[in-house]
């Protein structure tokens, strides 16, 4: 019914009355910015009557330049607060949900998304390619940065290529770059950085905006040799459910590198857990 403010000791998030993230503030540094997060999808080429290059395992070819919203209106929002972590559950649809986490003492926000099985129409199914999009008012001026296999950051310019004459025939996919560990947008003062737990395609199609493709399900072979549509399934024979994490933070541009360089190692080298029964020889175990 009204906007909701949720705070840890380090981060404050504001949600609008529809349950969407609206703003973020770092309580330690005072840095704040409007921030909207949403899930959308592109329809991929391939379904009848299309006969050209289909979107598939090798190829990303959306039918339109603007992604479609998944669900208009409100989403379900549930908050659980504890001494270590605040969990904010968002349910967008039966096949898209997310837990936003604020950890005590941590100045980043964790988005743990879960997508799938992506629906498949009975007749003439439509390929769907799901993105998560973070939007701010950072004046990034058509530029964004993606990592080069976890090493240096590469500057990317929208609708431009340094090595060939850019032709605006694929305005979305031509601007997609590999994101192996992180992507950011910045202006003279503010930077929005998103770290990923796996390689994803990412871009910034509008100033201040980051989008990352997190899941896709294609129903037509793209003709590049796999000879199968990218319609991966698990043991239940339905489409795959994918779940992953993004770590997002806002900072001033000068401090951002020192933050994401160490944070990327934390993301990559997660603690490894092994389990033991506690038996009467627990003294020996100790």
């Amino acid at each position, binding site marked *: 019914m009204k906007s909701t403010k949720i705070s840890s000791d380090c981060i404050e998030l504001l949600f609008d009355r529809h349950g969407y993230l609206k703003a973020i503030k770092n309580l330690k540094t005072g840095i704040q910015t409007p921030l909207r997060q949403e899930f959308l999808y592109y329809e991929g080429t391939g379904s009848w009557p299309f006969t050209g290059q289909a979107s598939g*395992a*090798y190829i990303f070819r959306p039918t339109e330049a603007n992604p479609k919203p998944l669900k208009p209106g409100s989403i379900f929002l549930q908050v*659980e607060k*504890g*001494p*270590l*972590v605040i*969990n904010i*559950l968002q*349910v967008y649809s*039966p*096949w898209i*949900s997310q*837990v936003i986490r604020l*950890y*005590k*003492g941590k100045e980043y926000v964790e988005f743990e998304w*879960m997508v799938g099985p992506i629906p498949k129409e009975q007749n003439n199914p439509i390929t769907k390619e799901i993105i998560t999009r973070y939007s701010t008012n950072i004046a990034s001026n058509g530029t964004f940065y993606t990592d080069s296999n976890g090493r240096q950051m590469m500057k990317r310019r929208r609708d431009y290529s340094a090595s060939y004459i850019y032709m605006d025939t694929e305005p979305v996919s031509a601007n997609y770059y590999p994101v192996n560990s992180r992507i950011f947008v910045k202006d003279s003062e503010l930077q929005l950085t998103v770290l990923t737990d796996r*390689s994803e395609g990412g871009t910034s199609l509008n100033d201040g905006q980051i989008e990352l493709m997190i899941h896709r399900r294609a129903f037509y072979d793209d003709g*590049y*040799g*796999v*000879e*199968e549509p*990218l*319609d*991966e*399934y*698990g*043991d*239940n024979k339905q489409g795959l*459910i994918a*779940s992953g994490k993004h770590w997002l933070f806002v900072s001033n541009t000068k401090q951002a590198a020192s933050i994401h360089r*160490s944070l990327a*190692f*934390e993301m*990559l*080298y*997660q*603690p*490894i*857990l*092994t*389990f*033991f*029964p*506690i038996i009467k*020889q*627990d003294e*020996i*175990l*100790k």
Partner: protein
Amino acid sequence: RNNLNVFRSALALLQHHDAVTGTAKQLVTFDYTKRLSMGWDDGEIVLNNALSKLSDNKFNATICKLCRLMNESICESTSRMSSFAVIVFNPDSHPKSSVIRIPYYRLAAEVTDFTGKLLDSQLSKTPFTSLIKIDASPYQLSVPVQIPALGYTTIYVNGSGEVYSKNRGKQRNSWKTLKPENNE
């Protein structure tokens, strides 16, 4: 060292560009999964052999287990045992202050570190339980850990209150039960 060859081979295979990008047929991807699972089997054996030697052979069974389905909120170890220890290894070359999350099947937990000091843990409901498998844990136990660089720490969990019913039918992952057509 040789006992890890299956694991090494599986990881080497998974560096193939079509494995990394998913530009492979479904059956090939299932095969990658199977080979990685077999590698993990060997890894667990090596881990337990090391433990047995370190403890002067007081542990001579495979008791140290990974939970391979933690990303699906499933852990056979924590579902079977009301009390258990967790060894948390930090593969990073920097000390780590983190919160680990364990699939948990009981109503309450008391968590201590290796000195016996009580830790401030948190029990949360597993979200999206209607979307995930029947043997997924109803709860998640969050525990703060401080781990030295390339080091480890041990925490002890004493649980109470049986929540998970062992009589519920379990879905089995096909990649665990898949038998190869031949042994080639």
